[in-house]
């Protein structure tokens, strides 16, 4: 415990590094997977190819990848870009399948209705399919977020310092407090990221909670079920 108190500054600065390294791969992975997932969902031919390739990407061991990337990218061996690129590859590997599944989860009847209303292909995707794929996309993004936050630590092995430094250093110097603080800080980041993602989801997808909220507020206010239209008091509903 003493170690933690004495090194709280170090833990905090490494936590910030961990966060800074984890955010870009999550966002980039999401953005890159979107067109790939769309392609995988759209054509049978691309589906097989894309899902296989993205699945294989995830099987690349992280340590060799981090070591090979500087050679491929022409970056310095200690450049944090290596970690960001490597983790983006893993994020894409996870998210392509998830994006394809998310787009496939949108009810075909709803898509047809949107076409019948006069949505063009482009606007139908962004205004109907993408938001309706949201819950499944979010589920995938939460997995990517947790996995990325923990994988950032591996970068420490190749010298890109992050919370992983605390495990390595703590093990070498036999300071359990240091190892544990690294684990706890990583966990906390993962949990905070998850909360933020869920929060963003609630904000952007209010309809997914609509059923629950009305049922509870209806109970609270004694409003009748939606079937009894005439009996409902509009003022009460409006006041909600």
């Amino acid at each position: 415990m003493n170690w933690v108190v004495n090194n709280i500054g170090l833990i905090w600065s490494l936590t910030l590094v961990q966060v800074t390294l984890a955010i870009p791969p999550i966002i980039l992975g999401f953005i890159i997977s979107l067109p790939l997932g769309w392609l995988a969902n759209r054509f049978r031919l691309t589906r097989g190819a894309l899902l296989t390739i993205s699945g294989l990407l995830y099987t690349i061991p992280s340590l060799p990848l981090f070591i090979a990337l500087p050679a491929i990218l022409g970056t310095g061996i200690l450049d944090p870009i290596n970690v960001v690129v490597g983790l983006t590859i893993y994020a894409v590997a996870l998210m392509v399948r998830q994006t394809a599944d998310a787009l496939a989860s949108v009810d075909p009847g709803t898509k047809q209705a949107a076409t019948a209303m006069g949505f063009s292909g482009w606007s139908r995707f962004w205004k109907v399919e993408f938001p309706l794929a949201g819950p499944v996309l979010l589920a995938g993004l939460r997995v990517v977020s947790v996995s990325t936050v923990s994988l950032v630590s591996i970068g420490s092995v190749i010298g890109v310092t992050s919370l992983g430094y605390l495990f390595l250093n703590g093990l070498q110097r036999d300071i359990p407090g240091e190892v544990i603080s690294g684990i706890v800080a990583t966990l906390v980041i993962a949990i905070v990221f998850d909360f933020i993602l869920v929060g963003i989801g609630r904000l952007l997808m209010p309809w997914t909670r609509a059923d629950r909220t009305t049922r509870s507020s209806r109970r609270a206010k004694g409003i009748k079920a939606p079937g009894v239209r005439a009996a409902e008091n509009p003022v009460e509903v409006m006041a909600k």
Partner: protein
Amino acid sequence: MIEFRTVTKQFPDGTVAVDEFSLVIPARQTTVLVGSSGSGKTTLLRMINRMVEKTSGEIEIDGESIYKLNPVALRRSIGYVMQNSGLLPHRKVIDNVATVPLLNGVKKADARRAALDLLDTVGLDRALADRYPSQLSGGQQQRVGVARGLAANPNILLMDEPFGAVDPIVRAELQQELVRLQRELGKTIVFVTHDIDEAFLLGDQVVLLEKGGRIAQKGTPAEILSRPANDFVATFIGADRGRRALRVEVVNGRNVVVDADGRPTGVLQA
């Protein structure tokens, strides 16, 4: 007026859904396409707004080929109501109703104001405007679907078994609403159903379809009832089972109409 001229639709797998179909659908009336599954009725409906593209033939609206128009623009000019409402689950009721005007570039405030009026038109409480579709009953959802179909004030309204998925009581209520609405609005309605009673209730013109979109008979409900063209029609409308065979019995000095089972259904007025 909508006119089909020798329209054929063959799907990529080889099935001919509609074979050389010709029909004139008069303006400001309700035409009901009725038939069992495989009769091509939904395919025919969806060819009008080019959700399904023809293989050959010609479809015209008011004398103009629909194939000269951009499909997206065409669809925005035609109301469409489908089974299971087809509402967008992520949009509030009011925004669902305002969908097409918003696509057409109407200002959001104006579109919403018009949408509220439309809720009145279809007999929905304005308090439902801020709900999501999942928070409504099936009947309410269908009403929202009808309101959405009317929102851009189209001349033509396509209805694809719109009342097929609601319970019989709500269905009867919605059918009566549609009859009332049509009396007020006078749209050119093309209505698809497999329910002959619904067809007779709603249709000014009823078109009975056999497999492959062959017209077994078309005419007013009275014409079809009074003279079924063939055995298929007689079976379909239930004439062969005596369901439509009413007769008159005199009870207490009045003419009571009874059905084939002898159950009274009404009294003849002098």
